[in-house]
């Protein structure tokens, strides 16, 4: 596949504050990178740097071989960036706003109309074509911003918190949209705090913490490569068993015990024989075990296990 995005040693400093520290990235067409990290980790700064909107302290960003920098109009036009706060002209109608976007990208009038129809349909905004933007809900504005980003047909799509304002149906539809964008050979980077969504549609996951890309793997590698031979177990008892809170931490290899009523969660070896031995031991000690099983590995678990610190 074609290499769409290459970022080498990207650094962004705001005075003495380092927002992005030597980040390297390489993304091919059809790949979708989910960017996760705590608030203030540098995700938005990285997005802005990749979109050519933020001056770099050092490093280079290239899209299809063209250097991304302020004023590189033809390279910048190949990047679609939707920031977390939708930038729109409130007093315009949806169609007029999108017409402006088409004009700004030098598209022919027929192409603009075609694309407006297409994307409004794809993003469930067809009925709102002539509505004033000021009357749209937050989710609708979010969808409008996505339409604005896609109308110029960018090869690299950067979406900062795109699903924050979307309703459940909108999120499902958004997942389908990202799938179809991937199939079209575009490279995408999406940041979100809804990790279950990212797990479903991303090919890669990048964890950014304090400006540094802590991890960058395929989703499978990320989810399964984090456990070091350990998984999280869920145990339910027939009646409340508060003694488990004392008993379990004393067992060798058990960690992260969390007791909530009749449900207990803890981390233990993924080895089935060890798990069976533990279960037998608990039953022998008179714990009324109703159910016991390892939880399916997911992105959320993997992220929490990665020990990313929250920024103060």
């Amino acid at each position: 596949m074609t290499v769409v995005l290459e970022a080498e040693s990207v650094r962004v400093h705001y005075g003495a504050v380092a927002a992005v520290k030597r980040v390297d990235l390489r993304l091919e067409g059809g790949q979708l990178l989910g960017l996760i990290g705590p608030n203030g980790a540098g995700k938005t700064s990285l997005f802005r740097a990749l979109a050519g909107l933020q001056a770099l302290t050092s490093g280079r960003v290239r899209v299809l071989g063209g250097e991304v920098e302020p004023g590189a109009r033809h390279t910048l036009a190949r990047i679609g960036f939707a920031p977390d706060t939708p930038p729109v002209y409130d007093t315009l109608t949806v169609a007029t706003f999108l017409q402006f976007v088409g004009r700004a990208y030098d598209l022919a009038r027929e192409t603009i109309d075609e694309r407006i129809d297409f994307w409004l349909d794809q993003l469930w905004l067809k009925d709102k074509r002539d509505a004033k933007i000021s009357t749209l809900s937050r989710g609708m504005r979010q969808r409008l911003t996505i339409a604005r980003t896609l109308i110029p047909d960018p090869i690299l799509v950067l979406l900062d918190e795109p699903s924050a304002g979307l309703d459940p149906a909108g999120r499902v539809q958004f997942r389908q949209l990202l799938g179809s964008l991937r199939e079209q050979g575009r490279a995408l980077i999406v940041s979100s705090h809804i990790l279950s969504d990212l797990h479903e549609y991303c090919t890669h996951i990048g964890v950014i913490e304090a400006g540094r890309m802590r991890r960058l793997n395929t989703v499978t590698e990320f989810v399964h490569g984090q456990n070091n031979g350990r998984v999280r177990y869920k145990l339910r008892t027939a009646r409340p068993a508060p003694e488990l809170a004392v008993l379990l931490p004393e067992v060798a290899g058990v960690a992260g015990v969390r007791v909530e009523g009749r449900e207990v969660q803890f981390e233990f070896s993924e080895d089935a024989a060890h798990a069976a031995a533990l279960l037998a031991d608990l039953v022998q000690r008179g714990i009324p075990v109703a159910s016991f099983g390892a939880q399916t590995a997911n992105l959320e678990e993997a992220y929490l296990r990665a020990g990313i610190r929250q920024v103060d």
Partner: protein
Amino acid sequence: MELPGMFSNPLGWVHAQVMGGWKRCLQLGLGYGGFALLLIVIMIRSAINEGVTPTSACQVVLSILMALQAGMMFMFISAGVRRAVQKDFTSGMIESHRQSPISGWSAVLGYLTGPCTQIAGITAANLLLALLLNVYGGMGMGGWLLWVMGLLVALIPAYAIASLLLMMALSTKGSATAMGMVIFLLAFGGANLMWLVPGLGIMTGVYSVTDMVQSASRGRFKFDPMIGFALAAQLGIIAIACAASARRFVSDARRAFTWELGVCLTVLLAIGGFVGLRIYATRYQQEWGLAGMNVPFDVQWLATLVAILLGCVIPISAAVWHRVGWLRRKAVDPEWRHPAPRSVGWVLLLIVIFVSVIGGWSLGIPLYDLSPEWRSFCGRIHMDNAERSSMALALVTAVTTGLALLPIAGLLRMIFGFRDRFGGILLFWIALAWGVPFLVEALSMAYSAKTRPMDSWFMGCSPIGWWALLLNEPKSSLWGGLAVQAVLAAVVGILLPGWVGSRQIRSYQRKVEKADAAPAAAAIAAPAAPAP
């Protein structure tokens, strides 16, 4: 069919839409036109009832209409431009524009046209009313064409203000206020105070334009050649402000001025200032004088010099900023391949050449003619005619301009090494090195009750004081002050910034490396793993 450039400009189009589009423009035009027509009919009827001839009544109303139209043009255009930029910054749309292929120049055109479409309806109404008044008053189409021409002339100062506001608004992320500048220029444009610097008086001569416009509304065309110069200077300002705005639109990290653009501004200021001195210096006393306020030529010359030297800070600052930015980037990014920018010294040299050539040319002959003392100074440097005195003046101006600006260049290099903004230190330096010797001399004169001659060598330590001595007391001791200036220029302009600058760059490098030094658990350069 595609619309011509100005009307198909996407940014202009969208801002026209944001302001309400053609529908609102039409509503405004019709509303205003109807109301104005009613007032005009009442005014003319009452004037005729009082025995005034229809022609005179129409001429008066045409003058009022022209003043109204010009005032609204200034207000609407300035406020519209500022509001559009502010809206783009507050809504975040500016970044959306920056990502699109809209060029800086196209954006400037868009900002200067789109938000101003609302005035089109009112202008159309006024044009129609003016036509009716000219026909009714018996001035015919000729009178109307003059009125239209006056309007076109008034557009130039309006756009000079608007383009300056656009530059300021883009530089301050939309927070620049329009009204302050408009009110200042309307109040002081061409006013007596401005003639302290004759070039400034001409360049901001909005009233002179108004004069012409009003004479046009009376069916007579009174063209003052000075207006031609004022309009040319204002067109120059528009070009420079638009170029700076186009740069600034592209990115907040870009300075509005490059050193080249700054030099253009300096040259415009120098030509404006010195042409003002050469041709219009005496006009102040002849036409613009105030009782009890006499501004002699040497004060005008000194004020012009100070204005130009302050203007020179812009290209020097641009060159310094670019240079320091490049050095800082290179220090933390060895792979950085952008070519090194032009050295600050070279830019300084270029400025000194422009200022001195234009200064020598403008000051030489008039000064030789005006001041007998100056002849004796020229005699000192073996000059015996006005042309040769111009050359000598150019040389002297070059030396003194260089000595005045070199410490500023050095200070700017140091300041930009520390931080990205300058201000306090530079102003402090200018006040200290240029102003304090004046103050000390004045205090000394007051203390000793002495009025003449000024003979303090301390005053010569100030670049402006040195010129004041030269213009007033050519026989006083000038060399001591000049030597002090040379030492200051060498220390503050060359030695200190070189030493402090290199330390600052190293410190910046360490700071960046330190910020990066925090250990990462597993930073991975993406190996472009295959999609699952």
